[in-house]
C-alpha cells in the first residue's frame, strides 16, 4: 500500500478464452529438482574466496542511552579485520518510502540497522565485527565496551499509550491530531476512516455487541535465518547476495543508507528460505557492505535463530475494540472499531492495512474506524502475511459470530445476509469490483465438512478474510533463443517457488509454445528495470502482467519479422496458435511461421527477438476466503486440537491450482499457529524469553490435520487471465474461526491471544465458577 495509485498504472482487460496451459499442473516445476537434491543455493550457501565472518553485537537492554562505545580492544584482536558501529554510518533525514506493504522512514531504518543515540529493544544492533573466523568474531564482540545508561521501558501497547508511560522518542508528537499536541507521545499517529453515520447506525440497531481483544506479536518464523554476503570492490562497487523479497528495494535502501549511487550497488537475490513479509527489510546488508569496504574482503553474515526472533520484525501486538450493531433479523447497521497497534521501536505498523481490512467483507452503510500506531520497546515490526489483518479479523469475525448467535442465525447465513459484493462501497474509498466472497460462503455451506458430526467438547467455527492485490513497478524480459525456446527474466522474487512455473505457463500460453520450452529465471538488479517487492500478494499477479506485456512485445517483433520476410506491412500479420499468419486472404498466400522458424530468420530481418516490460501494475483484484474449522477442547488440559479444516478462496484464476492449494494450506497452518501457540514473551526487564523454536512453538506435522481446499474463480477484470493474489488471505480467518469453534465446543469466548492451554483452562474455570454461582442463585 503506502503510495497513492498512479493514474498511469497498467491494467490489461480480462479476456475469456480457451486455455491450453494455464490452469494445469506442470510436472516439471522449475525450482523443484534443485530443492530436493540440496543444490538450490540460499544466501548462507554462497561463499566467496577470502571471505570473512561478520557478526552483530546486540543490546541486552530493552531501552538505554548509549553513552560510549569503545571498539579498540576488539580491533586489536588478531584476526579481526573490521569493526563498525554508529560512527560508520551517515545519519539520515526523515524520508518515507514503501518497503513492501509497510512504509519505512530512513531516519529510523538507519537507527534500526545500527543504534545511534540509544537502544530501544533487546537485540538492537550496536556494533558489528568482521573476522577470519566465527570464533574470533565472537571473541571480538566480548571486547567491545558499550557504556549504557539503562532507562525505563514499555512493552505492552496499552501501557505505552498511558500518560505516564516511558516515552521512546522525545521528538515524536502524535500525527493526525489537530491541534498538534504539545507533549511527545508513544502514539506516533492517529488514523480515522468513516462511512455514513455511525451514531444513526447504532440507533437503528436492535442488538449491539461491544468487545475488546488483545493479541501478542507473532513472528513469520521462516526456517532460513537472514543471511547476506557482501563484496565491496576497489572500484567502489558493492555486490550483495542476500535472501530478500525485493532486491531492487534493498538496492535502493543500501544505496540510500550508505550514500552510494544506485548504479554502484548490485543485489543478487538468492533462493529464499521463507519470507512471509519478514524479508522486506534490510538488516544485515548495509552492515556487510561497510564491513567489506573497511576490511577489503568479502563479508558473510548469517543470523542465529535467537537474533532472528530478537531483532527482525514480528507483527504488531494489538489491542482492538470492536462494537457492532444489527437488527434482530441480522442486518448489520453499524460497525465501529478502535485499533491500537504496536509498531515496535519505531513508528510504522501495519495499522493502515488493518484499517482497510477491518470490516471489508461486509456491505455496510455506517462505519467508523480509529487507529493508533504506538511505539514500544520491541523490535520494529515487519509485514507478516496479510499484515495487521488477522488481529482485526479476530475481533470482527468473533463479534459477527456473537451477533449471528443473538439473531438465531447460522454464521454463514448471517454473513450471506451482509456479504460484500460488486458495487459495495468500502469505508476507505473504492467500490469493490466483481469479487467471489459470496461464492466462498455458498461453497462452505454446501461442503461435506458441514455434515460431519461433532462429539462432546467439539465445536465448529466459521470466519472470513479479505486482502487486496498489490500492483506497483514490475519489469521483465522475454528473450527468444535462436532455437525458438523462450527465457523469461523476472524481477519479482519467487518467494515460494510457484511463480517461476506460473510465469512459464503464462509465457508458453501467450507464445503458443510448450511449457517445457520456456525457462524462467530471476534477474539481479543489473538485469532489469526496477521491480517492487514480492509483497501484498502481488508476486504472480503483478509479475504475470509484466510477463504478458513482454511476451506480447516479443510477438509484435515476430510479426514484424514475418512481415519483412513476406514483404507486407506488420499490421497485415497476426499471431494465432503460436504462429505468425497473414491477417487475411488478401495479404497473400504465405505459410504460417512458428516461433522456431521466425527465430531462425530473426538475424537477417533485423536482429534477436525479445520483448520487455517496464510497467507499473494497477492495484486491484482483491481476494476473499471463508474457513470452517472443527476443534476438540480438552477440558482437563485446555489443549485445543484441530479436527477438521476447510478453506475456500477466490483466486480469480488458478494458474497452477495445486500450488495454490499448497499456499492455502500453508497459510491456514500459520494461522493455526498464531491462534493456538505462538506469542512473544518478555520478562520484566524487557528481554525476550522465548527466542527459539523450542519455546516459540510453530505448528508441527502432528499438530494439524489435512487442510481441505476449494478454489473459487471469479476473474479479476483488470488482469488478462483474471488472476488475483492468493498468498495472504489464508492466514486471516484461522484465529477467529478457531475462537468461534472453541465457543461452539465449550461455550467460552476467548478474546486474548494466543488461545493456548493456560488461557483456555482459565476461561473454563471462570465458566465453572459463573455456572456454579448461577446454580447457587437458582437453588436459593
Amino acid at each position, binding site marked *: 500500500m503506502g503510495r497513492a495509485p498512479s493514474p498511469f498504472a497498467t491494467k490489461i482487460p480480462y479476456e475469456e478464452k480457451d486455455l491450453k496451459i494455464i490452469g494445469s499442473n506442470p510436472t516439471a516445476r522449475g525450482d523443484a529438482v534443485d530443492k530436493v537434491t540440496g543444490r538450490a543455493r540460499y544466501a548462507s550457501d554462497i561463499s566467496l574466496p577470502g571471505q570473512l565472518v561478520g557478526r552483530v553485537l546486540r543490546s541486552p537492554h530493552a531501552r538505554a542511552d548509549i553513552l560510549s562505545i569503545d571498539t579498540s580492544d576488539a580491533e586489536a584482536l588478531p584476526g579481526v579485520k573490521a569493526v563498525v558501529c554508529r560512527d560508520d554510518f551517515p545519519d539520515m533525514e526523515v524520508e518515507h518510502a514503501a518497503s513492501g506493504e509497510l512504509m519505512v522512514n530512513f531516519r529510523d531504518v538507519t537507527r534500526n540497522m545500527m543504534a545511534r543515540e540509544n537502544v530501544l529493544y533487546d537485540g538492537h544492533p550496536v556494533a558489528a565485527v568482521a573476522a577470519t573466523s566465527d570464533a574470533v568474531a565472537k571473541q571480538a564482540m566480548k571486547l567491545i565496551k558499550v557504556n549504557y545508561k539503562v532507562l525505563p521501558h514499555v512493552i505492552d501497547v496499552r501501557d505505552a499509550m498511558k500518560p505516564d508511560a516511558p516515552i521512546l522518542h522525545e521528538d515524536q508528537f502524535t500525527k493526525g491530531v489537530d491541534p498538534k499536541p504539545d507533549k511527545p507521545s508513544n502514539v506516533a499517529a492517529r488514523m480515522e476512516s468513516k462511512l455514513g453515520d455511525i451514531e444513526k447506525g447504532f440507533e437503528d440497531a436492535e442488538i449491539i455487541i461491544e468487545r475488546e481483544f488483545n493479541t501478542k506479536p507473532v513472528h513469520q518464523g521462516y526456517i532460513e535465518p537472514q543471511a547476506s554476503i557482501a563484496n565491496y570492490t576497489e572500484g567502489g562497487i558493492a555486490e550483495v547476495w542476500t535472501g530478500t523479497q525485493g532486491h531492487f528495494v534493498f538496492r535502493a535502501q543500501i544505496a540510500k543508507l550508505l550514500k552510494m549511487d544506485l548504479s554502484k550497488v548490485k543485489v543478487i537475490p538468492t533462493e529464499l528460505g521463507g519470507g512471509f513479509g519478514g524479508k522486506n527489510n534490510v538488516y544485515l546488508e548495509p552492515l556487510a557492505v561497510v564491513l567489506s569496504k573497511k576490511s577489503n574482503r568479502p563479508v558473510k553474515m548469517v543470523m542465529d*535463530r535467537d537474533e532472528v526472533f530478537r531483532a527482525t520484525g514480528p507483527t504488531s501486538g494489538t489491542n482492538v475494540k470492536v462494537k457492532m450493531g444489527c437488527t434482530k433479523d441480522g442486518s448489520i447497521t453499524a460497525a465501529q472499531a478502535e485499533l491500537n497497534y504496536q509498531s515496535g521501536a519505531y513508528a510504522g505498523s501495519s495499522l493502515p492495512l488493518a484499517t482497510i481490512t477491518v470490516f471489508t467483507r461486509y456491505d455496510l452503510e455506517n462505519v467508523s474506524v480509529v487507529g493508533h500506531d504506538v511505539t514500544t520497546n520491541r523490535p520494529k515490526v515487519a509485514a507478516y502475511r496479510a499484515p495487521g489483518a488477522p488481529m482485526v479479523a479476530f475481533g470482527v469475525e468473533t463479534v459477527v459470530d456473537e451477533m449471528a448467535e443473538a439473531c438465531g442465525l447460522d454464521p454463514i447465513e448471517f454473513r450471506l445476509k451482509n456479504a460484500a459484493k460488486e458495487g459495495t462501497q468500502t469505508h476507505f474509498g473504492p467500490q469493490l469490483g466483481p469479487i467471489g466472497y459470496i461464492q466462498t460462503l455458498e461453497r462452505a455451506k454446501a461442503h461435506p465438512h458441514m455434515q460431519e458430526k461433532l462429539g462432546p467438547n467439539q465445536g465448529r467455527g466459521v470466519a472470513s478474510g479479505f486482502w487486496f492485490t498489490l500492483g506497483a513497478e514490475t519489469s521483465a524480459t522475454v528473450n527468444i533463443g535462436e532455437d525458438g525456446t523462450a527465457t523469461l527474466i523476472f524481477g519479482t522474487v519467487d518467494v515460494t517457488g510457484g511463480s517461476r512455473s506460473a510465469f512459464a505457463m503464462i509465457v508458453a500460453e501467450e507464445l503458443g509454445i510448450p511449457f517445457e520450452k520456456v525457462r524462467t529465471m530471476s534477474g539481479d538488479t543489473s538485469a532489469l528495470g526496477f521491480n517492487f517487492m514480492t509483497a501484498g500478494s502481488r508476486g504472480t499477479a503483478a509479475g504475470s502482467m509484466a510477463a504478458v506485456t513482454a511476451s506480447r512485445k516479443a510477438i509484435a517483433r515476430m510479426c514484424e519479422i514475418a512481415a519483412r520476410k513476406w514483404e507486407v506491412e506488420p499490421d497485415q500479420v497476426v499471431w494465432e496458435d503460436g504462429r505468425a499468419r497473414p491477417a487475411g486472404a488478401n495479404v497473400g498466400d504465405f505459410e504460417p511461421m512458428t516461433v522456431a522458424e521466425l527465430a531462425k530468420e530473426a538475424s537477417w530481418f533485423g536482429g534477436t527477438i525479445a520483448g520487455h516490460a517496464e510497467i507499473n501494475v494497477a492495484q486491484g483484484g482483491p481476494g476473499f476466503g471463508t474457513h470452517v474449522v472443527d476443534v476438540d477442547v480438552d477440558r482437563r488440559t485446555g489443549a485445543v486440537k484441530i479436527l477438521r479444516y476447510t478453506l475456500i478462496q477466490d483466486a480469480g484464476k488458478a494458474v497452477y491450482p495445486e500450488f495454490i492449494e499448497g499456499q492455502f494450506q500453508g497459510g491456514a497452518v500459520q494461522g493455526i499457529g498464531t491462534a493456538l501457540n505462538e506469542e512473544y514473551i518478555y520478562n520484566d526487564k524487557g528481554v525476550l524469553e522465548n527466542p527459539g523454536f523450542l519455546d516459540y512453538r510453530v505448528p508441527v506435522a502432528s499438530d494439524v490435520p489435512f487442510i481441505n481446499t476449494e478454489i473459487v474463480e471469479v476473474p479479476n477484470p483488470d488482469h488478462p487471465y483474471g488472476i488475483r493474489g492468493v498468498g495472504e488471505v489464508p492466514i486471516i480467518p484461522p484465529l477467529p474461526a478457531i475462537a468461534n469453534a472453541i465457543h461452539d465446543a465449550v461455550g467460552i469466548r476467548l478474546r486474548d491471544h494466543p488461545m493456548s492451554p493456560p488461557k483456555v483452562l482459565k476461561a473454563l474455570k471462570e465458566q465453572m465458577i459463573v455456572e456454579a454461582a448461577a446454580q447457587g442463585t437458582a437453588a436459593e
Partner: protein
Amino acid sequence: MAKKYVNTTINGDQHELLCDATQTLLDILRDELDMTGTKEGCGTGDCGACSVTMDGVLVCSCLVMGVEANGKSIETIEGMADGDDLHPLQQKFIDHIALQCGICTPGLLIASKALLSENPDPTEEEIRYWLAGNLCRCTGYHKVIEAVQDAAREMRGA
C-alpha cells in the same frame, strides 16, 4: 586449540579432515566440505533442517560434534539421488508439491527416508509424529504427508 583428526564416510565417500573441537557435524558439512544441501534453521535441534543419518540413525547434525563423526557413516541429501535418478521420495515431493521455499526439504526428505526404512507402511499419524521434528513454514504439511504416503506405496511395490 589443537585440531582433531576425523576420518568419516559421507554418502559413501571417505573424508579425512582436521576439525575444531567446537565444530558441529553441520559446520563440517557446510563450512569444511562445502556440502551446503544440509541446512541450518536454528542450531539448537528444534527445526530439523539439518537432519542427516549417522550409521543409519536420524540425527540433527547441529547437535552432533564433528569429532563424533569419526569412523561413522553419514548420509546427507547430496547422496539421496542415484545420479540422474531421483529417490522415490524426492520424486514424490516434486509430484505432490510437498515443497515451496524448499529450505526444510532436505531435512524432511532425510527424515522421511529414515522413517520408511524403519516402517515401510506408516499410517498418517505415524508419519505426522515422525516428522514432528521437522518444521516447515510454507506447506502446512498436507502435501508433505501425501508425498510420503505415496512414496511409501511405491517403494513397497503396492
